[in-house]
């Protein structure tokens, strides 16, 4: 698995991971805007709430697929490392909560009213996961 991923990313695992995680984070910010419109917290003349909800679901599916790939790549190549403990914990919690959120969205499970809290927590965990890894790669020589 590790060799396959290294080959797929041509040896640039950290860079590819950083790019994809940043894309997920940027889309997650957009997700917050979309869901604010879908819940009627923000009203836009050009975007109705139901349309924003559909777009939120579609973009969310994309982010979920992206995060699943990133989680597998991260675990396969790096595993859990002591010096990246917070990153590992935040990432694992992110995946677990994302699975729970998808289950609630699709099946309800009596927790539908908690979806905003689920979503905000997922966003916060994604931000922590990004912040504990990406700046080191992006920081470069500065």
């Amino acid at each position, binding site marked *: 698995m590790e060799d396959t991923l*290294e080959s797929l990313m041509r*040896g*640039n*695992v*950290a*860079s590819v*991971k*950083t*790019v994809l995680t*940043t*894309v997920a984070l*940027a*889309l997650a910010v*957009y997700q917050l805007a*979309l869901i604010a419109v879908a819940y009627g917290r923000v009203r836009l003349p*050009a*975007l*109705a709430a*139901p*349309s*924003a909800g*559909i*777009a939120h679901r*579609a*973009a969310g599916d*994309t982010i979920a697929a992206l995060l699943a790939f990133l989680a597998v790549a991260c675990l396969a190549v*790096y595993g859990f490392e002591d010096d990246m403990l917070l990153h590992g914990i935040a990432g694992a919690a992110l995946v677990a909560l994302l699975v729970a959120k998808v289950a609630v969205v699709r099946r309800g499970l009596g927790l539908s009213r908690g979806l905003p809290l689920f979503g905000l927590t997922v966003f916060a965990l994604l931000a922590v996961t990004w912040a504990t890894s990406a700046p*080191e*790669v*992006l*920081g*470069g*020589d500065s």
Partner: protein
Amino acid sequence: MGARALQVLASLLVAAAIVAVTIAVVTAKLGPNSDDDHGGDRDRQEDSRGGHGRG
């Protein structure tokens, strides 16, 4: 095509634009051979110490 479909399509195009801009910005920030410099591929970095790292 209905108004709702157009709105959804436009929203997804915005998402695609966000993805494109993010990839462009982050890739520009990383630059070529960035893993050699930033230690992303740790095995390779270890192999290349004293070689083509930061110099």
